[in-house]
């Protein structure tokens, strides 16, 4: 005899410990199993695209910090790349190298946070997260030294960077880069073979290669599904063509792969920073650009490989001092698109693991 059961609706969020900000998922549950989910967002919508239309090109840089606030440096870089493409500005070598160093440090920091919060969602009581915070703290120290802020750096400028690095920066960076592999090794010991982590992440939330492409996912999510796609290789911007690095890819596209990709990318980033430190030239850090920038009429799409995926800025100029239209290609939002398909049919606990592995930042989703 079939028992008569009823599904029920559970709201996870906007205030929920593992929704990484103000994200909300309306679950339809059948016991523990998720029947349907509707992601709801917009709680952090600040209308940055609209705000940008009212401000000059250089002022918009400030607001890019507030997109993905865990990776402000790369947001700065993406915006700078887009404006430079629009206005045809050549960036000095030293500035490019500094940008690369900052962006890779940012990638490490963002991935640390991503892995840390994933473990937190799986239920490790803050410990791996706090270990990773320690390393992130060192990176933030370095950023603080260079630009005077720990979260909203506003470091890069159109045509360069705002300030040159102080003399104590490179020794400190070297020390950090030398010690980081040891700590990553420690995380590997703590997590990589942990049986509980394995049963919680392997074969959970499998995103096939075709689906990952069709859903326009980017970054670690796409690569975990086995697609070798990285803007740093596919369309090298800045000076990335001069560095030697690999693109790690996953095989299955499950939560475990997404976690592995992040660890592997951190290792690659360390290599890039080492090379950049060796090659770092002396010279100018800022191209000569007019105080009030008026790019020619036209449009441009500048993109970089942010920590969470392809981050692009689509700019339309009508020749004035303000952008006519600024659109952000937010990797976090697009990586969320397959969430519904991944989550239907799994248990609540897995849903949180899947959500955590996608690694979003609400500032970028809602903009």
């Amino acid at each position, binding site marked *: 005899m079939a028992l008569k059961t009823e599904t029920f609706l559970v709201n996870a969020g906007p205030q929920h410990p593992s929704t990484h900000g103000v994200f909300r998922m309306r679950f339809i549950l059948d016991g523990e199993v998720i029947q349907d989910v509707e992601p709801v967002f*917009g709680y952090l919508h600040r209308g940055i695209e609209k705000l940008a239309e009212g401000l000059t090109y250089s002022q918009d840089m400030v607001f890019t910090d507030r997109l993905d606030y865990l990776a402000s440096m790369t947001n700065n870089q993406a915006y700078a790349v887009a404006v430079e493409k629009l206005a045809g500005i050549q960036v000095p070598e030293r500035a490019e190298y500094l940008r690369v160093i900052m962006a890779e440090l940012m990638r490490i920091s963002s991935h640390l946070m991503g892995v840390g919060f994933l473990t937190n969602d799986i239920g490790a009581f803050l410990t791996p997260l706090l270990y990773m915070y320690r390393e992130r703290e060192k990176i933030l120290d370095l950023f603080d030294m260079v630009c005077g802020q720990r979260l909203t750096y506003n470091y890069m400028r159109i045509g360069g960077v705002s300030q040159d690095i102080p003399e104590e920066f490179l020794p400190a960076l070297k020390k950090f880069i030398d010690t980081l592999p040891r700590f990553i090794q420690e995380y590997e010991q703590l997590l990589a073979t942990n049986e509980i982590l394995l049963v919680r992440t392997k074969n959970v939330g499998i995103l096939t290669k075709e689906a990952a492409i069709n859903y326009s996912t980017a970054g670690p999510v796409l690569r975990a599904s086995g697609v070798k796609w990285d803007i740093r290789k596919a369309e090298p911007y800045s000076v990335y063509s001069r560095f030697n690095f690999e693109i790690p890819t996953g095989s299955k596209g499950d939560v475990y792969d997404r976690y592995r990709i992040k660890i592997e990318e951190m290792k690659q980033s360390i290599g890039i920073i080492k090379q950049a430190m060796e090659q770092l030239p002396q010279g100018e850090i800022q191209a000569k650009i007019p105080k009030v920038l008026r790019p020619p009429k036209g449009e441009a799409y500048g993109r970089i490989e942010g920590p969470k995926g392809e981050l692009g800025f689509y700019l339309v100029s009508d020749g004035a001092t303000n952008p*006519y*239209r600024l659109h952000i290609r937010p990797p976090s939002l697009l990586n969320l698109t397959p969430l519904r398909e991944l989550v239907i049919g799994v248990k609540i606990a897995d849903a949180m693991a899947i959500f955590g592995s996608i690694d979003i930042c609400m500032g970028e989703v809602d903009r």
Partner: protein
Amino acid sequence: MTVELQAAEIAAKLEAALPGCTIESSGNTIVIKDEFVLKAATFLKNTAGLDFNYLNFLTATDYQTYFEVIYDLVSLEHNHKLVLKVKLNNREKPELASVTGVWKGADFQEREIFDLFGINFTGHPNLKRIFLWEGFQGYPLRKDFKQ
């Protein structure tokens, strides 16, 4: 390095498959008529040699007299890209066929355009406001939006 495809060649291919669909083509950009958008999308995705399997982003711009919807297409296999544009002249009731059936990644982006520009995507499975709340008056990214 991503190859920016010559739009003129692809426009010719498109024209052969769907006569009368293109309006103009320059650089890497093809502008097509709005009623052809779904067919053109399917064609670009499924034609061998083009294989635009990845919708990089989808957005719109308000040019005061008309809306322009921009599809940035990339092929991950061949590493080439193309920009597809559609002009919508009907400002009162802009409508366009949804491409969610072709690229599922268009889902949230079409909702975003609907939310902020008021362009109605027919055939979208769940066309609701995405960032702003239900009942919000007006479409903020339109140039004539007043608070």
